[in-house]
């Protein structure tokens, strides 16, 4: 494994896409989606199955492979035994994967949520960008509405640029960047004694400051031919944008990769990315900027 190739590697273009598949009822749908994205981004494709290989599985897979019509030159199939999460993560690193595509249920049951499903565990730990598809289909639905998180973080520039790259490939004309405004203890502070005009001024100043920060980030991005809309939503980071994406029926939500490795404790006291993973509002692209 050439780790040096991974470090500081740009989050786009998606030169190599990997798709992790299991022999579930959604296998065919997921493989059609894999072909769609490999064609869209003109990428090399790696199809990974972490689990036992037997004759029946091989036959099923070969039938689907031929039926979907994958480009045999640009597609590689890997079967490997082992713990699915670890195996898929290792193979992604080894093959310098830029985008890993996984099928994921919108919501897991409580037990699975705390223990962690394979798709969500990979999303928390992957060293490449991850696309979670909530409803893969044999006729991949065109992504039209994309919303991304404009959080004040060094990674956001890469996330915006990756979203623009994604939008161009999918011929999307506009992107919405959402700023989440969270003011912990604000309610308590104003109840401590503030006049209406003071509260309004604090809110106005804060919005102006946040807007300035986001514009500063957008200025660093190259976004010709794409209309960028900016929206502010109040609420806790992660939950606010997830709720926004759900109520406004977005097709894809794009967020930064987590700043630190998320664990069990982060699911008990849910925050940021965990709010989104707990109840996926739509397809989710987690951009790993490798910075």
């Amino acid at each position: 494994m050439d780790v040096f190739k991974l470090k500081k590697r740009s989050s786009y273009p998606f030169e190599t896409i990997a798709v992790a598949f299991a022999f579930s009822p959604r296998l065919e749908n997921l493989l059609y989606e894999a072909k769609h994205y490999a064609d869209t981004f003109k990428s090399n494709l790696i199809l990974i199955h972490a689990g036992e290989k037997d004759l029946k599985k091989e036959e099923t897979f070969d039938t689907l492979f031929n039926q979907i019509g994958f480009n045999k030159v640009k597609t590689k199939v890997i079967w490997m035994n082992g713990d699915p999460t670890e195996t898929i993560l290792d193979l992604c690193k080894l093959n310098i994967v830029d985008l890993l595509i996984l099928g994921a249920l919108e919501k897991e049951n409580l037990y699975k949520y705390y223990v962690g499903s394979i798709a969500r565990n990979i999303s928390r730990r992957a060293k490449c960008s991850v696309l979670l598809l909530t409803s893969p289909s044999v006729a991949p639905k065109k992504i039209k509405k994309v919303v991304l998180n404009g959080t004040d973080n060094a990674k956001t520039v890469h996330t915006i640029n990756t979203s623009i790259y994604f939008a161009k490939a999918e011929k999307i004309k506009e992107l919405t960047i959402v700023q989440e405004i969270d003011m912990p203890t604000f309610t308590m502070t104003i109840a401590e004694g503030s006049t209406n005009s003071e509260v309004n001024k604090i809110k106005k100043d804060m919005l102006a400051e946040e807007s300035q920060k986001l514009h500063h980030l957008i200025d660093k991005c190259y976004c010709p031919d794409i209309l960028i809309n900016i929206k502010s939503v109040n609420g806790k980071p992660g939950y606010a944008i997830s709720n926004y994406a759900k109520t406004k029926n977005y097709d894809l939500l794009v967020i930064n990769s987590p700043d630190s490795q998320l664990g069990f404790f982060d699911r008990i006291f849910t925050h940021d990315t965990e709010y989104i993973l707990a109840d996926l509002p739509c397809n989710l692209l987690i951009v790993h900027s490798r910075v």
Partner: protein
Amino acid sequence: MFKLNHTEFIGLLVAMGTMLILARLSSELARRLRIPIVAGEIFIGIVLGPSILGEFSSSTFNFLFPLKSNVGIALDGITQLSAVLLLFIAGMEVQMQLVLRQGKAAVYTSFLGMVIPFFIGWYFAFYFPNFFGMQFKDDEKFLFSLFMGTAMSISALPVIAKILMDTNLFRTKLGMVIIASAMLNDLVGWLIFSLIISLMGTGKSWSVILLDISIIIGYGVFMLTVGKKLIDKSLPWIQKKLSWPGGVLSLSLGVCFFSAALTERLGIHAVLGAFIAGIAIGDSVKLNEKAREIIHQFISNVFAPLFFVSIGLKINFVENFNLNITLIILVIAYSGKLIGASLGAKLGGFSNKESLAVGFGLNARGAMEIILGTLALEAGLINEVIFVALVIMALVTSITSGSALKWLANPREKIV
């Protein structure tokens, strides 16, 4: 059934009206002077109480506040209820996810910002109880020293948040670390205080003590996991299907009272139940912000003034003021918090100047210290002299924090 007679009922209404109106005027003055409004409320309590009005015109004092009659019992019930509600709204602002998001800086700051002041407070109280003018049996000394440790380690989130907002430091990395650390300090501080209360009374064996600790931790874990999930599930329904904002208001306060009653029944203290219920409800992303605001406004502007003014009505601040004890408590409070929290912030990656700013930020004790002191006084853990010294320490630390932060941290140097 116990009932106030006609005259007593009028007395209660006059007392509450006087407390609320004068507390509002005094806190408005405090707000204009840019000092915490709790200082205004305490001040008016001292003016109206035995320290000043009672000294110069005892007949007026007894007319306005007939505390020796049944009115005193009714007022006492209201102030106890106020303490429960104040802890409920304090809990509502504790966000564990904010602590997790701030990472090691918040953990180091909070940990050392608690452990060092706790140790210094405990050490002086245990080995030099004479400094505080106290004479104890051994088990009483241990509980008193545990309390002094807790009193030195607690922070006051409301005052700190207000100071950070006024100094334009709120949305900086420094501000968020101070807020997150204060949240963790409050949580641990109230847990320890509850443990002290549960340990009170002689002859508890170690097995009983361990059981008390398990109950406190178990109840907290239950409410913050299962309880919180249930609240998360039911809040959207409550806010959508029941009348607004009445539904969420009455059910939230209902949960608070049940939780408070349960912890009181378990021999801990009602305030812990209210505090934990506050965390479980306030931490829910499903809680409508307007509902949060209504609960805060209602409690902060009705029950908080009644509570803080009543302190001055019960205690003679002039008679119980002891300069030496006050100075000792101030020195211990400043040194413990400044050393502990600053060291934690330094280990968390802040510069020397910023670390000192974090120390001063967390040094503000405000209302939380006063509530803690009041409950300790009622429980017989401390006497009036120490209580007065703690109130003064709470006010002095709160007033000086703002100026120190302004001096040490430049808000234009955003760290985020």
